[in-house]
């Protein structure tokens, strides 16, 4: 009985053969996509349009509004990095503020000691932080959960103090001054420095988002998510868990480094006071509020990080309280707002928008009754 089943002769209909899959190299080379569907071309197209639109819009905004927008940019990049690490790869970092500091000081030191153009300075800041991040990633790949959190926390606490310890190089408490670039002449005399900063931010953000989007749609991004969900299953599927985690950490750090360099540029100064533990923690809060692991989440998160404390301060100022109470009340108001947002949108703002959008679509299709 068993013999006949195994040979499959008498039970041909019962035992269906599963053909081995052959790698059809020729077929894969035949896959030709129209040019606009190539991610590189398509994303660059969308990016250029976005930058051009922003260029036009920012021309109609006041100097102050442009400066405010420029303030948000650095956090968007840092949040993109953090969101990639946590949302896509399942690692945690309470040290992204310190990584921003590395980018900021790299930018400042190179600007101080060399005559490199702005773009090269920004790339250098990203690269140095990327390399630092890959070293940190090697450590992180051996640590899990609370131990990783603790290690990165130590980084956030300890690293800014290096600046005060080696004062002659890093500038101590005062930090280092950054020369803000003046807009190139071809943009016209009316083009303000603030608008220029906002546009530089925008270009960096677009590049950051394109890279993030490419990554999460690629094999590498999928491997990151697999490692996040189940490390053992990833290994039996041929994924090197360590390499994936180190790479995620390095890219994440690179984004934070670029964010830090932009922060230094916008505030025309880099000092330890700007990269405290509070920064690292509020980055985590911004990530969760925006929507962890999504592309648009960091944008919402960064706006909340920058604007909500400002609104809270303005609101408490109107109450004519004494200064001590007003300062604490604005912090409290900020906290309450965060709690309310998390209650209303546990998947972050992007998660809320997404579920709202899919409900609308379903209703359109008549699949969801009112």
């Amino acid at each position, binding site marked *: 009985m068993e013999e006949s089943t195994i040979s499959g002769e008498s039970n041909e209909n019962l035992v269906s053969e599963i053909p081995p899959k052959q790698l059809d190299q020729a077929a894969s080379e035949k896959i030709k996509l129209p040019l606009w569907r190539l991610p590189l071309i398509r994303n660059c197209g969308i990016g250029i349009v976005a930058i051009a639109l922003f260029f036009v819009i920012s021309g109609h905004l006041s100097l102050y509004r442009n400066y405010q927008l420029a303030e948000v940019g650095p956090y968007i990049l840092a949040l993109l990095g953090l969101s990639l690490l946590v949302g896509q790869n399942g690692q945690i970092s309470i040290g992204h503020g310190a990584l921003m500091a590395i980018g900021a000081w790299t930018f400042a030191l190179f600007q101080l000691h060399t005559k490199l153009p702005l773009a090269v300075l920004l790339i250098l800041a990203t690269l140095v932080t990327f390399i630092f991040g890959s070293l940190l990633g090697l450590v992180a790949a051996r640590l899990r959960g609370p131990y990783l959190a603790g290690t990165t926390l130590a980084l956030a606490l300890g690293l800014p103090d290096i600046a005060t310890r080696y004062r002659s190089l890093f500038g101590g408490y005062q930090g280092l001054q950054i020369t803000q670039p003046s807009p190139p002449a071809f943009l016209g005399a009316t083009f303000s420095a603030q608008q220029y900063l906002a546009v530089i931010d925008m270009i960096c953000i677009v590049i950051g988002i394109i890279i993030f989007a490419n990554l999460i749609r690629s094999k590498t991004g999928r491997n990151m998510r697999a490692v996040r969900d189940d490390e053992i299953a990833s290994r039996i*599927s041929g994924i090197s868990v360590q390499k994936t985690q180190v790479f995620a950490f390095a890219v994440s750090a690179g984004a934070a480094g670029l964010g830090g360099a932009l922060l230094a540029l916008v505030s025309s100064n880099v000092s330890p006071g700007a990269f405290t533990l509070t920064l690292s923690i509020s980055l985590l809060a911004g990530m969760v509020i925006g929507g962890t692991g999504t592309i648009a989440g960091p944008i919402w998160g960064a706006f909340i990080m920058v604007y909500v404390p400002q609104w809270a301060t303005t609101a408490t100022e109107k109450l004519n309280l004494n200064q001590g109470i007003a300062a604490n009340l604005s912090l409290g108001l900020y906290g309450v707002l965060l709690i309310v947002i998390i209650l209303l949108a546990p998947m972050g703002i992007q998660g809320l928008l997404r579920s709202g959008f899919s409900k609308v679509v379903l209703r359109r299709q008549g699949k969801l009754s009112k």
Partner: protein
Amino acid sequence: MMSNSIMENSTLIADEVTVRFGGLVALDRVSLNANLGEVHGVIGPNGAGKTTLFNVLCGFVKPSSGKLTYFGNEVKTLRPEQLSKMGVSRTLQGLGLFSRMTVLENVMIGGTSLTKVGPFRSLLGAGATVTEEARIKDLALSVIADLGLSPFTKRLPPSLPYAIQKKVALARALVLSPKFILLDEPASGLSNVEMDELGDLILGLSKNLGVLLVEHHMDLVMRVCSTITVLDFGRVIANGNPSEIRANPIVTQAYLGEDVTI
């Protein structure tokens, strides 16, 4: 390249493999010889060392002594991800699926080592990324279709019935067209009907590759296996075809208790 004569006798051989965890001897000079085109069962009471043996065969556990040969090559020092690329694939006890990724993504992960696009090129989203992705996707979709999982491509595993999820795990292990597949308790949690189906599936698989099967359901083991190795306390106590194993008094005594017949 491997010569044809070796390919014909190609086997996955564990030779006198011993694994010690501290003072505990989990496997004691265990030998096993699995061939292409047959289903090799590994049975034994709980704690006999079946999963440890699988862990050795797929590279998770390094044996303290003994040899592990795959297609004539010594592979004792290889890591799971390297063995998986060479054609030793496995499923895990339970499910081991990626719970926040769709069925399609889960299966595509199985083919992850097919593409040579490195992480830095992924960042740029260059043309090769797209064609290679399309290639893995096609491959994954055809395995999904073979196993009848097409309706569930876009679903998340936790939203599917257990039997379907087990098939997804199997599909993921099959994408790389392995030479050997190690199935660790594939029938646990399945109904009788589903188990019959699984038996057919395993027999179908064994036409093209070698299957190693750890399983507690004796009906299934006796039906699909051509050779069975019985482990008890980390040692091989019997080895043979199903009727030999059934008739072996040592097996019935040590494994099933004296009064039970199979």
